[in-house]
C-alpha cells in the first residue's frame, strides 16, 4: 500500500511534536515546512511553563497537562537538557475562593499522579519560598518543587532530530506559498523551494494561521492577542533564592538566568479590546522590544500590589509576541470544510502544554481515522454557526 503523504506547515512546538508522532507510523510519509527556523515564532517567545497545576488550562483537561509534562520529562530522561528543563518548582497564589478551589483540585490530581505538592496557608512559609511577595489578602498558595519550565525551542529541535531519525523530512527557511486543491480536496503545496504532493496538509502555523487558512479558502476564527514580556534584573544582580514559576490569575513569572521573565496571563486578554487583540502581521514582530505603554502600567499596578520588591528591578529587555487565540481560548483540531486540510491551531498561550497530546491524538486520527475525545471536543464545528468560515 502506498504511504499516506502528510505535509505539516509550521515548525513550532505543535508542528514538530505532531511530525514526530506521525514519523512513528510506518504507513505515513511526513514532511514538515518551516518558513524560518525551528521553534522560532511563538514557540521562541513562550515562557515554557508546564506546571503540574495552575489556571492556564481547566482541571478537566488534567490529562492533557500531565501528558505534556511527562512527555518533556521523558525527553530530559533520554538526553538531559534536550527539553531545557529548569526545575524551579511552582508557586500559585490563591487570590480568592474560586482560585483556591481550583488550586486544591490541581494539587490533589498532582498527588494522585505521584508528585509532591501542598497547599500552604501560612504566609511565613510562602514568603520563605519567595521573599518579595506582599501576601495581604492572599488566602494561600499551591506549591510544588517537582516541576518548573522548559525551553520550548530546544524541545522543538529535539523533536525534529527524532523525526529526522525516523526518516521524516524537515525543511527550514522554506515558505509555503500556495495550497494546491482539486475541487474541494487538498492535493499538495507550493513553496519557495519547489512543490510537493500530499494527501493531507496540516496547518500548525500558529499566529500565521489566519493567512495560511486563506490559501485553502478558509477564514479561521483566530485572533492575535499580545504576549508582552519584560525581563527584570534584580537590583542586587543575583537572587539569593531560587525564583519559582510564580502564577497569579493576572500575571506570571519565572526565572531566566539571573533575571526574571514576567508576562500578562493569556486568559486576561479581551478579544474585543483593540489594545489586547486584533489581526496583525507576525512577520513584522521583532526579536525584542515593541511592548505597549499599557503593559508597563499593568505591571506596575500588579507588582505594586503583589510584589513591591520587584519594582526596583531593572528592565533588562522586553519582547512582544502574538498568541493565536480562538474565541473560547481552546485549540481548534481536526477536519475542516476542505478535504484533507487538517487543523492543529489556536493553542494560544498553552501550546507547550497541549502540543504533546495534540500531536499524539491528531497523528492517530490522520493515520487511523479514530477521533479521541479531545479531537471531537475541539473541532472547528463549534464555530460554524457564529462565524463565516469561508475566505472572501
Amino acid at each position, binding site marked *: 500500500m502506498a504511504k499516506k503523504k502528510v505535509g505539516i506547515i509550521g515548525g513550532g512546538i505543535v508542528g514538530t511534536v505532531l511530525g514526530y508522532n506521525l514519523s512513528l507510523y510506518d504507513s505515513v510519509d511526513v514532511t514538515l515546512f518551516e518558513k*524560518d*527556523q525551528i521553534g522560532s515564532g511563538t514557540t521562541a517567545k513562550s515562557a515554557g511553563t508546564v506546571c503540574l497545576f495552575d489556571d492556564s488550562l481547566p482541571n478537566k483537561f488534567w490529562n492533557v497537562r500531565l501528558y505534556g509534562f511527562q512527555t518533556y520529562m521523558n525527553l530530559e530522561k533520554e538526553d538531559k537538557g534536550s527539553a531545557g528543563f529548569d526545575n524551579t518548582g511552582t508557586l500559585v497564589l490563591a487570590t480568592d475562593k474560586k482560585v483556591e478551589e481550583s488550586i486544591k483540585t490541581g494539587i490533589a490530581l498532582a498527588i494522585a499522579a505521584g508528585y509532591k505538592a501542598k497547599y500552604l496557608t501560612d504566609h511565613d512559609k510562602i514568603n520563605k519560598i519567595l521573599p518579595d511577595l506582599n501576601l495581604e489578602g492572599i488566602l494561600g498558595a499551591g506549591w510544588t518543587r517537582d516541576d518548573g519550565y522548559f*525551553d520550548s525551542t*530546544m524541545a522543538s529541535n529535539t523533536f525534529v532530530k527524532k523525526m529526522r531519525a525516523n526518516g521524516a523530512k524537515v525543511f527550514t527557511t522554506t515558505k509555503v506559498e500556495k495550497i494546491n486543491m482539486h475541487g474541494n480536496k487538498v492535493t499538495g503545496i507550493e513553496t519557495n523551494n519547489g512543490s510537493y504532493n500530499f494527501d493531507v496538509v496540516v496547518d500548525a502555523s500558529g499566529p500565521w494561521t489566519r493567512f495560511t487558512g486563506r490559501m485553502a479558502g478558509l477564514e479561521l476564527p483566530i485572533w492575535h492577542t499580545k504576549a508582552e514580556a519584560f525581563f527584570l534584573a534584580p537590583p542586587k544582580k543575583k537572587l539569593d533564592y531560587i525564583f519559582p514559576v510564580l502564577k497569579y490569575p493576572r500575571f506570571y513569572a519565572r526565572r531566566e*538566568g539571573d533575571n526574571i521573565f514576567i508576562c500578562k496571563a493569556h486568559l486576561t486578554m479581551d478579544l474585543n479590546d483593540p489594545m489586547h487583540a486584533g489581526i496583525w502581521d507576525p512577520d513584522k514582530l521583532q526579536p*525584542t522590544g515593541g511592548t505597549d505603554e499599557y503593559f508597563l502600567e499593568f505591571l506596575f499596578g500588579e507588582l505594586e500590589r503583589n510584589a513591591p520588591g520587584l519594582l526596583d528591578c531593572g528592565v533588562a529587555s522586553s519582547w512582544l509576541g502574538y498568541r493565536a487565540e480562538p474565541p473560547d481560548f481552546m485549540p481548534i483540531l481536526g477536519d475542516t470544510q476542505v478535504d484533507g486540510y487538517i487543523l492543529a491551531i489556536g493553542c494560544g498561550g498553552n501550546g507547550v502544554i497541549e502540543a504533546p497530546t495534540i500531536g499524539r491524538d491528531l497523528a492517530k486520527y490522520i493515520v487511523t481515522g479514530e477521533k479521541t475525545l479531545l479531537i471531537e471536543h475541539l473541532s472547528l464545528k463549534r464555530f460554524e454557526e457564529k462565524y463565516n468560515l469561508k475566505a472572501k
Partner: protein
Amino acid sequence: MEPIKVIIDKCIGCELCVKACPYDAIQMINKKAVIDIEKCTLCGACIEPCKFDAIVIYKRSFKGQEVTSYSGICLYAEHRNGRLASVVLEIIGAARKLKEDLNEKISAILLGNGMNPLAEELVSYGVDEVWMIDSPKIGEFAEDVQAELVAEILMEKSPEIFLGGGTIIGRSILPRVAAKLLTGLTADCTELTIDSKNKLLRQTRPAFGGNIMATILCENHRPQMATVRHKVMDEAKKVKSGHKGKIVKFNHIKIPKTKIEVLGFVKEKDITVNLVDADFIVSGGRGLQDPKNFVLIEELARTINGAVGASRAAVDAGWIPYSHQIGLTGRTVKPIVYVACGISGAIQHLAGMKSSDIIVAINNDLNASILDFSQYGIIGDLFEVVPELIKQLKELTGSKK
C-alpha cells in the same frame, strides 16, 4: 581657526589689499598685512587685487566652493615612537591607485619632532611631497594642535583629497579638521575610487552594522576627506629607486599651545577581554556535554585572545555563569569572528550573535541550523576539532613572532 588669513611668506607688503578693503579691516604691521577679524565680513574684495595669492578665505557658505582650484591627494602621516603607523602604508597604497586615475601628486602631512627619517620613508613609498612641520613644540598626542596645523596646511595647499587612518588618533584629528574647514568627511572607508565621469572621490563604507554598504561623494566642498579602515587595503610597497620626493617645510605656521596636557601613556599588556567588546568570541553549547569540557572553549579563546560565550542551554545546565550567555535573553555581541562549538543555533542564540562579521560553526550535525548562518562550518567531533584548532593556531601565531 580664522576664516581668512594672510600667508605671511607670500605677502610682500604692497598694501594693495589695504586699499581694496571696504571695511577698513586690513592694516600693515611690520610690512605684512594683518586682518582685523572683528571688522572683516569675508567679502573677498582683497583676494583679487593681491598679485601674490597671499590672502585666502575659507568660504563659510554652502553654496559650494570654487572646487576646480584644488588639486592633489594628501594624507595624514600618523606616527608613534618614531615609526609610521602601518595604516599610513595602506593609505599610500590607496593613494597610489587614485593617482593612476587622477594623475595628481601625492603629498603627506608630517607633524612632530625629528621627522626627517620618516619623511624619507614616506618618499620611499611613493609620496611626492612631504609637507612637514618639524618642531619639539608639537606634542605626539596633541591632537588639538595637530588638527589646527593640518587645517592651516590644507588651506594653504588646497589638495583635492585628504585621507587619514581609521585609527583612534586619525578618527579624532580628521573630524576636527573637517569641522574647521567645513568640508565633508567619510569615516572608515573600505574602498576609495575615482569616478570616471566627474573625477570625484567615491568613498565606500559599511553602515548598519555591516548590513549595507554606502558610497558617498563630497561634491561641492574641498578637500574631500576620508578615514580609511585599518587592515582592509593593501600596504604600499617601496618604489624603485629614482623616485624623487620633495620635502616642504611649513615653518612659517605658528604652533598653538595645546589645551590638553599629557600626563603619561600607560601600556596595557593583558587587556581583559569583555564579552561585548571582544573581537573574537568562542562559545560553547550543549554539545560540550559536561561542564569540565568548557576548559576546551576557554583554551581556544585564550589562544586567540578572545572571550568566552555560551548558549542558554549551557548556562541553564549550570556549566557557566549567566553573564556569559549570548542570545535573546542574554547579551548581544558583534565580534569579528564568532566560533560556535556544539551550538545547534536555536533562534534565541542566533538573535544575540548573527550580526557577527564571521561565524564559524564546529558541529557534528550537518543539519544544525547554525550552519545556515555560518561562513565556515567544520563538521566533526568538537573534542577532536577544537584541540586540533588550538594546536594549529599556536603553531601559526608562534611562527609569526
